[in-house]
């Protein structure tokens, strides 16, 4: 179906189901209950899940397939965002031209940076990309302030009058899709549960599904095979009459355009850009997302992106009061004790939990979350069939 083999098609269906039903899946706890804290089904976070999913999928096309580790990918996200917001400020508030603009701008940017950086490989390549991204960040923050807004970034202001718009005097333009406001939502109430269906989220989700579909196609195409060949053995590649440079450059540009797409979508969902979006930690974040989920797997990067964004947005919001509420049913002494134990890991300590998860995943699940999922499935299967453990599962851990 759709040119996918059965396995990929099933995965694709699962991804469609997950994204379309996300408002339900991410809101498993009734509103008002103590566990509601863990609900992630509100528009902003759902949007971030899919947008950073796109970012990571794109990064994985470069890193997972060719093995080239770019440490400056956030620059393309940022540049795409700037391109998109200028489109909205000057031309139209419709999100489609803005997103297209983001993709084009970052594609051109990626072409230039990739052309230079891909003259080197391995760590030298990584440092070149890092250097370009850091330069972009530093300049955007300072001397390019007239274009980028500097520290305070760019927003749509009441004085912005895009060419194709009919705003009233003093009205602040809103991102829309042919009049459909990105921020409009339907609220569905079922018993104690409340589910939000947000226009912006669904647009971003559809874009992510398309981006995911495209990435499957790329993975399964001769081009994808060539990219894996680049990773595997460049010498053989050269002596098989293949020029590795345009392949890696194409992968780099595609992946830069994915980043630009994510950047454009970020602006479409939330019309604002700041230069921190290009800081090296943001580049590092997408690397971590991809590795955490499972590099060179199709779904891994999306899972990694989801986990990191979940931690950042949910864990950081838990504070001491909430802890006290959770443990309120316990005797005071035990309650205080538990709060003291848990407190360093939540709220302002969410970084600590993140660090521990990074370490735990890489130590216990080499290959990332996808590998963890596989092991779990193997475990379930083995339980079902009640056969003694075969060697197969042990081998499924890649040795290298």
């Amino acid at each position: 179906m759709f040119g996918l083999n059965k396995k990929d098609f099933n995965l694709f269906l699962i991804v469609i189901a997950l994204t379309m039903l996300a408002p339900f899946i991410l809101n498993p706890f009734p509103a008002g209950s103590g566990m509601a804290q863990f609900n992630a089904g509100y528009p902003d976070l759902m949007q971030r899940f899919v947008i950073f999913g796109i970012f990571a999928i794109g990064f994985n096309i470069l890193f997972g397939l060719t093995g080239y580790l770019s440490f400056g990918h956030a620059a393309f996200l940022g540049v795409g965002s700037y391109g998109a917001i200028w489109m909205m400020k000057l031309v139209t508030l419709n999100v489609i031209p803005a997103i297209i603009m983001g993709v084009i701008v970052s594609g051109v940017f990626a072409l230039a940076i990739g052309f230079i950086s891909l003259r080197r490989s391995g760590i030298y390549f990584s440092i070149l990309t890092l250097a370009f991204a850091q330069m972009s960040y530093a300049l955007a923050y300072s001397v390019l302030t007239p274009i980028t807004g500097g520290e305070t970034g760019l927003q749509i202001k009441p004085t912005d009058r895009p060419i194709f718009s009919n705003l009233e005097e003093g009205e602040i333009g809103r991102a829309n899709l042919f009049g459909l406001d990105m921020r409009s939502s339907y609220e569905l109430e079922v018993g104690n549960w409340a589910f939000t269906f947000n226009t912006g989220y669904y647009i971003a989700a559809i874009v992510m599904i398309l981006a995911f579909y495209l990435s499957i196609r790329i993975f399964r195409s001769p081009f994808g095979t060539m990219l894996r060949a680049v990773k595997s053995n460049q010498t053989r590649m050269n002596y098989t009459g293949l020029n590795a440079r345009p392949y890696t450059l194409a992968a780099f540009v595609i992946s830069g355009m994915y980043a630009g797409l994510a950047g454009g979508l970020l602006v479409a969902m939330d019309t604002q850009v700041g230069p921190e979006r290009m800081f090296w930690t943001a580049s590092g974040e997408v690397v971590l997302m991809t590795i955490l989920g499972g590099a060179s797997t199709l779904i891994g990067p999306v899972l990694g992106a989801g986990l990191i964004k979940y931690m950042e947005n949910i864990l950081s919001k838990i504070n001491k009061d909430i802890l006290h509420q959770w443990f309120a049913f316990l005797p005071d002494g035990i309650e205080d004790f538990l709060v003291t134990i848990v407190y360093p890991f939540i709220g302002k300590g969410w970084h600590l939990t993140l660090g521990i998860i990074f370490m735990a995943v890489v130590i216990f699940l080499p290959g990332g979350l996808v590998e963890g999922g596989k092991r779990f499935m193997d475990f379930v299967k083995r339980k079902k069939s009640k056969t003694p453990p075969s060697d197969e599962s042990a081998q499924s851990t890649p040795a290298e």
Partner: protein
Amino acid sequence: MFKSGTPLTSLAITAGGLIGFFVLMIGLVGVNAVLLQTLDGLSKGSAYAMIALGLTLIFGTLGVVNFAHGALFMIGAFCAVTLSKFLTLSKEVVDESKTDFLGNPLKVNVPYVNDLFGEATGATIIDWAVPLSLLFAIPVMILVGIVMERGLIKHFYKRPHADQILVTFGLAIVLQEIIKFYYGANPIPTPAPSAFSGSLDFGALIGMDPNLIIYPYWRIIYFVFAALIIGAVFAFLQFTTFGMVVRAGMADRETVQLLGINIDRRFTLMFGLAAAVAGLAGVMYTPINSPNYHMGMDFLVLSFVVVVVGGMGSLPGAVLAGFLLGILESFASMREILDVLPGINQIIIYLVAIIILLTRPRGLMGKKGVMEE
């Protein structure tokens, strides 16, 4: 092609370039400014060189992408903080003549060392906390390095670089969060002994007008200290049997193992050594800038750039690149330069890194085949 690969040629090229650069700069901004910024570049470069040296031992030679190296620098700095906190452990004495912010009688902290050694000696000991911390930091850092290697890094030598990045980044976050938990996020002042406050007037020494070329004593000490440490590490690797085995192991690990030498144990010790170098760099850095929990991350990216610009697997390359980038950064911050090229101070290091990597594929003195895949 053999020729251009030798360290000597690259040194010659660098030296030639630098001389030309200096002449140009002197023409532009005058000899005083150039002298001053060179001095500053050397002191700035000392920190870069020391951190890069330790990182190269781990990253350039053991092949482990150690994102926790910045954290080692930070832990070193907090060794100094910890010792000075320890020395100022105090009992509270109520001073009835003053009041605190709530209007209650003021509680004054009197350090125990004052009780033990008398007020004058106690104050001196506290004053010298940073140099004293060196003694404290060496065993702590070596231990930290060894525990880190045995407990974690050891299992990652053969894993992909991606896994190494994830695990060491995770470790770096955990380490800095632990420090933040105990010491807070704000910088903690850790001054140098008062004997070293103020600055040396170089200009006056060589007969120029006073105040033209002044430089803080502590930064000069830092430079000398860095030179000593770097020299010691080189001497250690060059002249001891241990060092020879390690160098051989860097070149060809399997052969050395075939010779029946336990290279793993030596690598562990080398990790300890690298940690100690980073840590000592951190201890001595505390008076220059008050340490805070994320100072390691601030240096992390820069130190990777320095190592790679120096060339993977080359210790002299790392040191050379450290000083080179330090000096260039200093020059780029001069207002005469900034008037012509606004914002150049923001990007100089990265710009130079790009130029060097494009003209010299393996950095200044890199070895072929180290982490090029």
